[in-house]
């Protein structure tokens, strides 16, 4: 049983430079299960039960996507709206995700200078991830510091390959430092 669930969303992977390589680095890593949302649901008809089942069986959940308009690609929004049901993910009876850890893995075209006060985007990139962060908190999940590849517009292939290798090490580390899951009471 894999311990890390990567929910991956990229609408045009055939045009991707960064995520295609990040994905290759993650794929096949023991203990990591990659779930490609656009591939599974090209018509956005998300299988809510299956998604919830996947969430339940993985202690660590990664949302991996390119930053689009300071937000997630459309299918991730659809996924949140449908899968994180009231009474399941949040609300008085909604405790199923409690204690899980959530991390955003994203890439942004803009570089570090752009994502700072006074820069092109005026805020650090994490500010733009706040809606996801608050979603995780509402569901009682632990918010891990986002893993962000900045400045992808200006990255050349060797840099991207280096970023992919770093991502692989990051995943291994995350997997290996997992707390031993508490026995069910």
């Amino acid at each position, binding site marked *: 049983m894999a311990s890390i669930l990567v929910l991956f969303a990229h*609408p*045009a*992977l*055939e*045009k991707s430079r960064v995520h295609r390589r990040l994905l290759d680095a993650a794929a096949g890593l023991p203990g990591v299960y990659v779930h490609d949302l*656009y*591939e*599974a649901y*090209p*018509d956005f008809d998300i299988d809510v039960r299956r998604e919830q089942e996947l969430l339940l069986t993985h202690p660590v959940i990664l949302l991996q996507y390119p930053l689009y308009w300071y937000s997630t690609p459309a299918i991730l929004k659809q996924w949140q709206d449908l899968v994180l049901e009231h009474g399941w993910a949040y609300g008085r009876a909604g405790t199923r995700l409690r204690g899980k850890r959530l991390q955003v893995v994203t890439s942004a*075209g*803009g570089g570090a200078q752009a994502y700072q006060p006074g820069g*092109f985007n005026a805020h650090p990139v994490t500010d733009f991830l706040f809606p996801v962060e608050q979603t995780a908190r509402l569901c009682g999940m632990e918010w891990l510091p986002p893993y962000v590849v900045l400045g992808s*517009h*200006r990255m050349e292939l060797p840099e991207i390959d280096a970023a992919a290798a770093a991502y692989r090490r990051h995943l291994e580390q995350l997997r290996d430092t997992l707390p031993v899951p508490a026995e069910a009471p």
Partner: protein
Amino acid sequence: MIIGPFGLHLVGQEGADVMHVAEFGVVMMLFLVGLELEPALLWRLRAPILGLGGLQVVGTAAVLGGIALLLGLPFPAAVAVGLTLSMSSTAIVLQMLGEKGLMKTAAGQSSFAVLLFQDLAVIPMLALFPLLAPAGAVAVAEHGSWADGLPAWGKTLVVLGAVAGVVALGRFAVRPALRAVARTGLRELFTAAALLLVIGIALLMQSVGLSPALGTFLAGVVLADSEYRHELEADIEPFKGLLLGLFFIAVGASIDFRLIAERPGTIVGLVGLVLVAKLLVLAALARVFRLSTDQGLLLAFALPQVGEFAFVLLAFAASLGVLGVEVTGPLVAVTALSMAVTPLLMVAYERLIAPRVIAGRGEERAADAIDDQAGVIICGFGRFGNTVGRLLRANGHPAVVLDNDSDRVELLRRMGLKVFYGDATRLDLLTAAGAHQARVIILALDSPEKNLELARLVQQHFPHLTVLARATDRPDTYELMDLGLTHIYRDTLDTSLRVGVDALRLLGMRAYAAHRAAQVFRKYDEAALTELAATRRDRSAYISLARDRIAALEALLQSDRGEFSDGQDRGWDPEGVREESRAGGLRPS
């Protein structure tokens, strides 16, 4: 040009007798009927053809032959009369059932099977008749054929030989000839060749003393599975209406009013007798073959007339001396009259019989009065309509359904659906189904012509209804568009696109990319459709002809080659931004 001299020749040779005009109409008609009969179709229907068809011919021949015996005819003559009268009219019945959209019902399929068997049974009958001829009787040479001098068994051999000859000729000579003609690419030449073929075979058969109708029918069957079938059909199609008209006129003309005037009671009595006897035999067989009551009755009411082959058989029997003119004369009149009353019988069935039989089975019929305000009417609950209906029903919008397959109607009624039996193009039925109160009507009939007719009817009488129409082909889509309809659904478009999407995925394309590609393609295709709809008038008037369909496909494929997906989904393409960003930043200067 070619028909002229040949036609005149035909008529001239045999005397300008109306019966021969009739025969020529039948000749052409049967060629077309033969073309419809692919050997594969024959095989699929073999059980009903042999069983139902065989018993119908044998049963009817026995009953009517028995009556003929009682009326004082000698045994061989009675056999000939029985067999002759067991025929029904392929031309009339197929045309009628097709027009009413009933071919796919159980009764329609059974009718087809019976007619087919009869058509085939003519061959052995023609072979049998010479054996029935009284020994030593001098055959009256009607066609002046050289075979007349032969003894009975010799004639039988000649008949069989001629049949084999036509089959062999069709296979080994006609096809290569047609191929050569087709290669010239001249449409007129092909049409001429098709007509020449029909007339040539007619003459050939005549020269051996056989029915030209039978010969061309055979030629049709032989060519039915050839690659030129649609081409031949398409070329002869324009003549079809004309020929059918000619055929029906000929039937009317063959009625010898002097004869009827002389013995009106006898003739009318005979017509009644024949119709009732055939109807009863058919109804009984329908029982045996487990058709539901109303389908069985439909079969019985569709087929009781005597068919066009009877003209041929009677003429043949007369020429052999099996039957005298005092018998064939009245029987020709009976045959023609029985054909003439067929449409009336169908009306009687539709208006009087069917409503009773079908109402008798369901729950109380009064409940059909418009109780709740159904918002939607579905016309046709076959493969297409039923999916639509189920979706609506599952979402709380049960539709009122109109369907003309009584077996299906019965089932749907049992499932608690509101279903009206009958031809959806009937105004009274639409009104009864609540067309005045409904908001939406879905035209899902199998036949494009029927859907079109229905669309016109609805526009005329219920203009408040939003029409959603099923279309099968581009040509009928165009016609629906011409009516100003905007909700038109080509019934295989979505399925083919889905197949395409799955194929693209299997070839390695990303699921979402394939999905988008299909969405884009569909939009493009709809646009191309509208465009082609506007230009099609410049081309040939016969848009439904096979050759034009190919031309249309060619135009379509050519326009596809343009990069129509250019400019699609550019939002996901980061290249432009990347360049700008590397060149100094995105800030507007």
